[in-house]
């Protein structure tokens, strides 16, 4: 009954850079890359976070300070207890000759995926982007496990200055990519999608939507028009599933369920 609420003390905190931290919990979690846990900060709120690393008896999530909740998480100390429920949702499937495209904190679920792929001896290339150097997390891991690791930052503080989409097509060609995984801001994925749809390369994308229940009943995370739930049928969707998603990059819903345009 891993959906039941239980709190666990934080056993370790890693600061990747200003406002980006990973939290380690000692808890057995039967999860795979792409799946997420709901994290309860008592007295505050509960939100979904991707599992970024996993061992036999521990798990890790990686958080970027953004709004009030994630900012509050930056103040946590080792020993503080958080609720960790899950895993929820569907995971990535495994493919060889893959490209992992990560943007910002979206790198988190790809970190676990990269680990799983390398454990399965599947080859992959990474293409990681962020606003700035400090937000590029787990780069050493990606560099270790990937055949090649391309890096971009908006401000040029690490890797090439620019967006992950800029060299995307040439990388696909050069690396003979046969499958694409992407996780990051939805706007990034919309651009990626535009570029790769004509190539007919299959892909999987890890989506985010506002969530209340994580267990498929509140309807808060449902996508137009297919009516699938990001928390159950997602957060990982493939190109076929996404064909029926008309809201991609257009709207999402807030806590009330209202459509919001901005991403």
């Amino acid at each position, binding site marked *: *009954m891993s*959906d*039941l*609420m*239980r*709190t666990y003390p934080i056993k370790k905190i890693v600061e990747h850079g200003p406002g980006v931290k990973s939290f380690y919990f000692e808890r057995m979690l039967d999860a795979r890359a792409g799946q997420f846990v*709901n994290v*309860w900060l*008592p*007295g*505050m*709120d*509960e*939100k979904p976070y991707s599992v970024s690393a996993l061992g036999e008896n521990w798990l890790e999530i990686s958080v970027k300070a953004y709004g009030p909740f994630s900012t509050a998480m930056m103040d946590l100390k080792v020993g503080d*207890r958080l*609720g960790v429920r899950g895993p929820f949702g569907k995971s990535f499937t495994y493919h060889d000759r893959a490209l992992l495209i990560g943007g910002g904190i979206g790198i988190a679920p790809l970190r676990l995926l990269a680990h799983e792929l390398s454990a399965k001896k599947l080859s992959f290339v990474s293409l990681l982007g962020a606003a700035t150097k400090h937000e590029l997390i787990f780069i050493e891991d990606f560099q270790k496990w990937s055949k090649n690791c391309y890096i971009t930052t908006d401000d040029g503080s690490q890797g090439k200055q620019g967006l992950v989409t800029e060299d995307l097509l040439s990388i696909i060609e050069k690396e003979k990519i046969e499958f694409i995984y992407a996780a990051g801001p939805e706007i990034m994925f919309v651009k990626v999608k535009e570029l790769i749809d004509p190539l007919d390369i299959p892909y999987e994308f890890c989506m985010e939507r506002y*969530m*209340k*229940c994580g*267990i*498929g*009943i*509140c*309807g*808060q995370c*449902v*996508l*137009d*028009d*297919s*009516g*699938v*739930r990001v928390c159950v049928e997602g957060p990982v969707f493939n190109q076929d599933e996404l064909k029926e998603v008309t809201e991609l990059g257009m709207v999402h*819903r*807030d*806590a*009330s*369920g*209202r*459509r919001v345009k901005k991403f």
Partner: protein
Amino acid sequence: MNSVRFLNLELKNPTVLASGILGLTASSMWRVVEVGGAGAVTTKSFNKDWRSGHKNPSILPFRHGLLNAVGLSNPGIDEMVKEIGKFKQRASAPIFASIFGRTIDEFAEVTQRTVEAEPDLLEVNVSCPNVHSEFGQPFGDSLSDTAKVTEIVKKHAGSIPVSIKLGPHGPGIARLAKVCEENGADAITAINTVGPGMLIDIDVRKPILSNKTGGVSGPAILPIAVKSVYEVYRQVKIPIIGTGGVTQPEDAVQLILAGASLIGIGTAVYYQGIKVFEKIARGIEAYLQKYGFTSLDEIRGLAHE
């Protein structure tokens, strides 16, 4: 043979998506019909303006059901009316609009505007237990308030039938149902969540739900739903949408034998997945066949004999 008539409506089977579950958008409810097999759907309860509801955790599984205090979050009537319209274009099953208001006037206004979208039924939620601190006691805790709400909604509902959704608490569900009937209600939906209850995390020593308390739904409340439907059936002639704790066909049959005409299903979506509607509809059909009945009408209320 599982198709049923309910008031002036025709449903392909007697299962109805309960309010608050996957009822936020047309797409979501469409999928509950197409993939899940529901005979009809109910929207999330909505009122005039949008509400964010309570913070998370707002929906909490425990070993025997769920505790929820979503806090009637909804995108407000403007968006919900659009979603109802979209659903009607896209799906063939009836849609029930669940409405509420903070005041009698708001009930009137929300009814007027909802009617424009032509839902197949108006379900009036007077029994949400999770907004006490904000709204005070639910209208459904008082016979006279329930009467007033029923009257005003009926007045503005025109030809659209009205079902009042009651909880198991307050002055007694049978008396409440009677008052609804007397004031023109066309049906009763019974029951809303039970309690409310609370769960405390013993390690951080705090109530888990952000609202502290939340209504209990799911398997734990089945006996209370059966009893509520049984009592309402004895008291009124109008049909009942029996809701509460149904996860198996046998549970639905219990509610029908107690007097329900349709079967609301909510929390079971968590336990059984979205196809629970189809599973339960099939199971009811199998039950009828086993005993040689040819329609639900033949078994409705039989536990009273």
